[in-house]
Each structure stands twice: as C-alpha cells, then as structure tokens.
C-alpha cells in the first residue's frame, strides 16, 4: 500500500511541474532540447553563430509569452523535425519512443518462453530408460546368483 501512496504523491508533484514547464518554459530547458543546426550538439553546448541566432529567437519568444510547444513548433516550421533533440510524443515520433520498449518486451517474452520450455522439457525426461524384457530377465538371474 505504501509504494502506491508514494507513486501517487510523486505523480501529484510531477504534473504541476510539467504544466509549468509547458506554459512558462525556461531558456535552459529549451536550449537543452534543441539542436544547433550546424554543429550536431544541443544549443547549450554550442556557441556558434547559428546557435546564438536560435538562442536569441528563443529568448524573444519566451519574453513574448509563448508556450514551450509554440516555440518548438516555430523552430520545427523553420528547420524541420531534426531541430529537436528528441522526437515528439506524437505521430511518427511515437515509434522512436515505443519501438525500443516494444523490442525489450518482445525479447523478454522470447527469453521467458525459452526458459519455460527448457525447464519443462527437463521435467518430462524419464528417470530411467525401460529395459528390454530379455535383458531384465538376465539381470534378475544374475542378481539371484549373488543372493
């Protein structure tokens, strides 16, 4: 019961933070999530003229009161989807989020089925092979000799 309560409380804390981030994004979080188009790093790791230009645009849009989505949409409209450091949680971008998770679940299921089959095949193995009647008769005779 206690872990569920902890998870519930954590969710209560996270939701307002996420909403605040959407409606009042910070320069730092956007710079960490947007790529510099000429250097292959995020904006916060680049000081190139192209990165500086986008940083200025972000600062202007934040000052104008744009939401995080509005600023990201504006950047995507100018530079294409590759300007975002992580794919979006919508449309084709969902594949990038869910495909690896699906792969991990599928791999785990394959391993689980393999282990289950392997362990059951071992259980079904007979303890001893049945002897040929003639051989069994001969064995009884041999044992009787020793008695």
């Amino acid at each position, binding site marked *: 019961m206690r872990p569920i309560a902890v998870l519930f409380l954590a969710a209560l804390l996270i939701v307002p933070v996420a909403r605040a981030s959407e409606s009042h994004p910070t320069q730092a979080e956007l710079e960490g999530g947007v790529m510099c*188009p*000429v250097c292959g790093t995020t904006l916060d790791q680049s000081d*190139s*003229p*192209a990165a*500086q*230009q*986008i940083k200025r*645009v972000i600062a202007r849009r934040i000052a104008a009161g744009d939401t995080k989505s509005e600023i990201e949409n504006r950047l995507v*409209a*100018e*530079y*294409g989807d*590759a300007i975002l450091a992580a794919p979006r949680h919508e449309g084709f971008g969902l594949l990038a989020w869910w495909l690896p998770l699906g792969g991990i679940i599928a791999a785990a299921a394959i391993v689980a089925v393999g282990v289950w089959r392997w362990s059951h095949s071992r259980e079904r193995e007979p303890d001893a092979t049945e002897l040929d009647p003639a051989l069994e008769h001969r064995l009884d005779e041999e044992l009787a000799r020793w008695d």
Partner: protein
Amino acid sequence: MPRAARLTAQTVAVALVAGLLALLIWRVARDNNKGVSQALAAGSHPTAPNFDLPRLDASGRFDLASVRGKKPIVLDFWASWCQPCIHESKRLESARKRYGGRVMFVGVDTKDFSSDARSWQRQHGIKYPSVHDGSGTVLTEWGGLPIPKIFFIDRSGRVVGELEAEEDLPRYLRQIASS
C-alpha cells in the same frame, strides 16, 4: 516450436539484421560520397540536382528545373548568421547588375530563420531572389557545410564549378554567360 516455423523465424531475423546493416552502409556511403562539391573535386561536372523550395522574398515556390538547361545560373548558399556570406553575396549582387540579363542569380538561405534572413537581405541590399532551405536538405545534396557555397551552372544545366577563390567569380561568370 515446429521445425518449419523455427526456420522461418530464423530467416526473418537474419533478413532483418541484414536489412538494417545494408541501410547503415547505404547511409554512411551516401553521407560521405554524395554532393556536388565532392563530384566537382573528383573532376566530374554533374547535372545540377533539382530542388523545389519556398521563396524567401516572395510568395510561392521556386523549382530549379524550371530554369535549369534554359539559362546559366549562379547558385549561392548563404545564411544570415554566416559572416563571410555578407561579402560574397554583395559581390554577387554587383555581378548581377552586370550579368543579370544573361545569367540568373539564385540564393538558397539555409539552416536559417526566414525572418532574420529577409532582414539580412534588406540590410545588405541583396536583390536577387532566394529560397528557404531551413532543414539544410538541399545544402547537403550540394555538398553540405561550410557556407558560403557558390556554384556556377551553364546553359545546358551542368555544374561547371564552385567558387573557391576571389578570381573564380569573374572567370566562371564569363564561362557560363558565353555557354
């Protein structure tokens, strides 16, 4: 699992891995070898790759195929954040005043903010038309960064050269204007 089903599953898995490997090799080869700049450096003169992009300084789109092979073209890849682009675009603007009737000048604003790019054009008095290549896809096809990158296309649609030194501009302009 029946033998046939196991074989099918194994074949599918191997085909999937082979497909992904082929995709990776194709992508790496494409990134390393393609591009007009690289072709010119290797001594060939390819036909100018086509593009169809939105106009920066007007509404509508510009399709290179509509003029390629009909008129000589100077293609200028630039951006408002690119400091050396100012000098080269101003030189092209001067050249346009002299060759404008015989040669078409087209700018490709790349990896740039279109509003900043329009301000930049006004500020530096650049009058030749430009298109907007925000994602840089067209730039990649022509050889990628760095910019400025200036190409000369003759009347038949072949790329005859890329500007590498100051004196290349009048030389290539004369060459394509008389093609």
